[in-house]
C-alpha cells in the first residue's frame, strides 16, 4: 500500500502544549482553524506544524470546556468559516497554562544546565 505519513511532526508536540498554542494564538483576534494552524506555523518559523487530526479535536474540546466560543462568518474570500474566539474562561486558562509552561521550562533548563540545583519537591 502506498500510504503517506503526514502525521510525523518535525517536532513532536508535548501532550497539552497544543491547547496552549491555540489559546495563545486566539489572544489578539478570533480566528478559524486553518488560520490558527497557519499562525502557529508562521510564528514558530515552520518548526511547529499542527496536524489537522489534532487541531480540530483540540478546538472542539476547548469549545466544549468553554475556553473558546465559535460562530460562523463569511471570510474575505466569500467563504463560510467557523471562527473561534477566546472566552473569559479561556483567558484564565491561558494564564494558568502559560505559568505552568514557564515553570516547566525553568525546571527543564535547570536540569539541562547541569543539575546543580536540587529539585524542589
Amino acid at each position, binding site marked *: *500500500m502506498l*500510504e*503517506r*505519513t*503526514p*502525521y*510525523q511532526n518535525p517536532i513532536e508536540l508535548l*501532550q497539552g502544549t497544543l491547547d496552549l498554542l491555540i489559546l495563545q494564538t486566539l489572544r489578539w483576534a478570533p480566528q*478559524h*482553524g*486553518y*488560520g490558527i494552524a*497557519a499562525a502557529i506555523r508562521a510564528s514558530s518559523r515552520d518548526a511547529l506544524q499542527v*496536524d*489537522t*487530526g*489534532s487541531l*480540530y*479535536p*483540540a*478546538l*472542539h*474540546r476547548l469549545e*466544549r470546556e468553554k475556553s473558546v466560543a465559535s460562530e*460562523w462568518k463569511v*471570510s474575505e*474570500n466569500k*467563504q*463560510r*468559516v*467557523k471562527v473561534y474566539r477566546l472566552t473569559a474562561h479561556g483567558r484564565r486558562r491561558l494564564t494558568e497554562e502559560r505559568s505552568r509552561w514557564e515553570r516547566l521550562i525553568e525546571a527543564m533548563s535547570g536540569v539541562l544546565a547541569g543539575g546543580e540545583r536540587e529539585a524542589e519537591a
Partner: protein
Amino acid sequence: MKKPGRLFGRNRRERELDDEIASHLAMAERDRIDAGERPESARAAAEREIGNVAIVKEVTREQWGGAWLEQLGRDARYGLRLLRRSPGFTAVAVAALALGIGANAAIFSVVDGVLLRPLPFPEPDRIVAVEPLSTQSVRVPLSASYPDFFDWKAQSHSFTAMASRRGIGMTMTGGSEAAHLAGQLVSSDFFTVLQTAPALGRAFVAADDRPGARVVILSHELWQTRFGSDPGILGRSITLEGRPHTVVGVMPRGFQFPLDERNAEFWTSLAMDTEGEKPWTSNRGLTAMNVIARLRPGVSQESAQAEMNAIAANLARQYPDDDRYRAEARVIPELRRAVGNVRTPLLVLLGAVGCVLLIACANVANLLLARATTRHRELAIRAAIGAGRRRVARQLMTESLILSLLGGAAGLGLALFGTRALLRLASSNIPRLGQVGLDARVFAFTLGISLLTAVLFGVAPAMRLSRTDLTESLKEGGRGSEGGVSHNRFRAALVVAETAIAAVLLAGAGLLIASLRHLEGVHPGFSPRDVVTFDTSLPETAYPEDKQSRFYDDLVSSVRARGGVRSAAAIFPLPLGDSHVGITFTIEGKPVPKSDEPAAAFRQVTPGYFTTMGIPILSGRDFTPRDEKSAPPVVIVNRALAARYFPGENALGKRIHPGIARDGESVTREIVGIVGDVKHRALDEEDSPEFYVPHRQLSIADMTVVARIDGDPKILQRDARAIVASLDRDVPVFHVRTLDEYLVASVAQPRFNALLLSVFAGVALVLTAVGLYGVLAYAVSLRTREIVIRMALGARQNDILRMVVRRGLVLALSGVGIGLLVALLVTRLLRSMLFQVAPTDPLTFAGAGLLLAAVALAASWFPAHRATRLNPMEALRGE
C-alpha cells in the same frame, strides 16, 4: 427518541463539522494556488496534508462528549461504517456467529420447551411422582399396585392430594366408524392434584371411584372433533367398550396429562378396576399404576421422601409376598420424571452447540486480530489525540457488539428453520415437543448469548489492540509486523483451543455413531421385512372369552385369504410396541418364596406366529388349533428362559406355572416348544426370559395382527379396515404399520442424537479448518520476506511447503492432543446414551484425531502452496 431536538442538534453539528473541514481544505488549496502551485496539484496537496478526512472527523466528533447513549450511537455508526467498508470480513464473521448462535437458539428452544418450562398447572413445582423403587438389585423405578397406592394415600401426611393413573385404550362405538381412543384411568383426586378444573362440567368425585360408576371427561380436542363442540354434551351418554358412559366434563383446550404418553383423549374413573371376581384394586401383586401427588405447602421433597420410604419399608414388612423388594418409594418432581429419558441427550446437545459457539467466537476473534494489523495506524492516531486506552477499547467493543448482534439476528433466522427441522427429525417419544417454538424466552436467550458472544470474541482483541505501542506503529509506517507476531502467537493459541474443542465434539459424535451402528446391527430376533401389523380391540361386553379367540381365528383366516399374504397370525403384546406384560411363574418341583418368584415377559399368540415373524422354533413344536381350552395346557418358552431356568437340561416337557393375575387363571403348563429370543422392549436390552401361551387357552380382547406380505404392503394396509369391518363393524383398527416402522421408531432417539451431534461436530470441523487456514495464511504473509530470502538462498519449494505445513500440523496436533485428553474426561457424560461402546473407545478417539489431522493438513496445504509460489522480486518490492 424523546428528544428530537437533540438529535437534530447532532445532525447540525455533523453538517457544521463537514463544512468546517471543507473550508479548511478550500483555504489550504487557495493558499497553495496563491503561492504559485498549479490548481490540480494544489487540491491534491491540500488533501494530502489534511490526511484521512474520515478519521479527522471521527476523532473530532469524539470531543463532543455528550450522553453515554449518544457516544454509543457514535461508536455504533462509526463501527457500521467500518464494517460496510470490509464486507468480506463482515460476512464471514457474521456467518460464523449466525451458525453458532442459531444452533444454540434452536437447541435452547427445544431444551426450554421440553425440560425447563414448568408444568402448565398452578404451583407446578409441588406436583411430584411417587414410584416404588426396586430394592432387589438395581434401584429402578417400578409401577405401583392399587393396594399400595391406597396405603400410601392413607398413611402419608406430606401431600394435599394423591392420585393414581394408568394409560388405557377404549373403543368408542355409536359413530360412523368404531374409534379406538387413548385415555387415562384415574382415581378421583387426579384433577385435585393438578388443580385444574374442567372447562365444562365437573371433575371426578369420590363416588366415581365406586363399582358401577361409568363416567368420562373428554379432552377439548375429542369434544371438538367427535362431538362438534356440542355445548349440551354434559350428561350425554357415549359408548365405550360397549358400555354407556356419562360425560361429566370437558377439559380446557391444551390440557394434557401425563406428558410422556400418548395424548389422552379422555379420562375415566377407576370404577372399572374395582369390578370383577378378582378386582385390580385388591391385587397387591398387580403393578400397573403411576402415582402423582401434590406436596403440602411447607413440606420439602426430602421430608416427603423420608416419609414415603418409611411407609414403603413398613408395607414391605407387612406384605413380603408382593412388596418385599419394594421397600423404598421415590418422590421426584413429575416434570423431572416425565422428561427423565431425554434429559441427558438434550443437555449433551446443548453442550455441543455451546462448543460450536465457542469455536465460532475463536474464529471471529481471529479475524478481528488479523484485521487489526491493518488498523494499527488508525488506532495509533486515535490514541495520539488523547483517546484513552479505555476509549479505544470501547470503540472496538462496540464493533464486536454490532457483529454479534448482526450474528444474533441472522442466527435467529437460522433458528427458525433449525427448530422446525429439529421438530421434524425428533422422535415422537420426546415429551412436550408441541410446546417448542421461538418465543420471548428464546429471544431473550438469543440476545443474551449474542451479548456474551461479543464479550467472548471481542474482549481479548480489544485489550491487545488498545495496548498497542503507538509510537512503534507510527514509526513502522503502519506495517505493524511486530505487534503482528505477538498477535499471531495469540491467534495460534486460539486455533489450538478451537481444534481441541472440535476434537471433543468429534469424539462424542463418533461414539454416538458407533453406538448407533451397533444398535442397528442388533438382530431383533424376528425378520422385520415385509410384515404389516395392525391393532384391534374387542369390546369385552360383546366378546366373552370364547368369542374373543374365535374372532381372532376368523380374522387371521380372512387376512391369510387375501392375495399376497404369505402368512398371518395375531399376538399381544407386539415386540417393540407400547405394551409390556411381565408375569411371575414357578417351576414345578422347584418351589421358591413368593417374593422371589422369577418373572418373564408374557405373550398370547395364535398358531403360526413364529413362522410369520421369522422367529426360529429351536426345538419342539408351534401351537396348533388343537391347543384349546379342553386340551392339556401348553406353553412355549424362549431360549433365554430355557437356558436360565433349565441349565444343562432339556426344557421340553418340563412344567411351569405362570401366575396369571388378571383372570385369576392359574394352571400348570407343559413346555412344548423352545423359540429364539426376541428383543421385546428395546434393541439395546439383554435377551431375557419370555413365554408364549396359545390364545385359545387364554384369550385376550386386544391383539395385533401380523401378516407377512409378498409384494406391496400398502395393499393390506389399505384393506385392513375392510377385513375387520366385514367381521364386525364395531371393532376398530388402529396403528396400521409395518414391523420396519416399529424398528425404525425404536432407534429414532439415538439416531436423532447421533445425527445432531454429527452435524454440530461437522460445523465445528469446518470452522476450525477456516481458523487454521486464516492463521497460517497470515503467518505466511508475515514471513514473506523470510521465505523469499530462503528461496533465494536455495531452499526448494518442498522445504517451504514442509515448513508451513509443519506449523499447521503442530498447531492442529496440539489441539487434537489436548482435545482428546479433555474428551477422555467429558465423554463419560454420554455413558447412558452409548450401546456396546466404551465412553473412551480408543478406535473412535483415534478416528476423531485422524480426521482432524487430515482436515488440518488440507487447511495448511493451501497457504503453504501459496508460499512456494511467491515471486521474490514482487514480494520484496511490496515490503
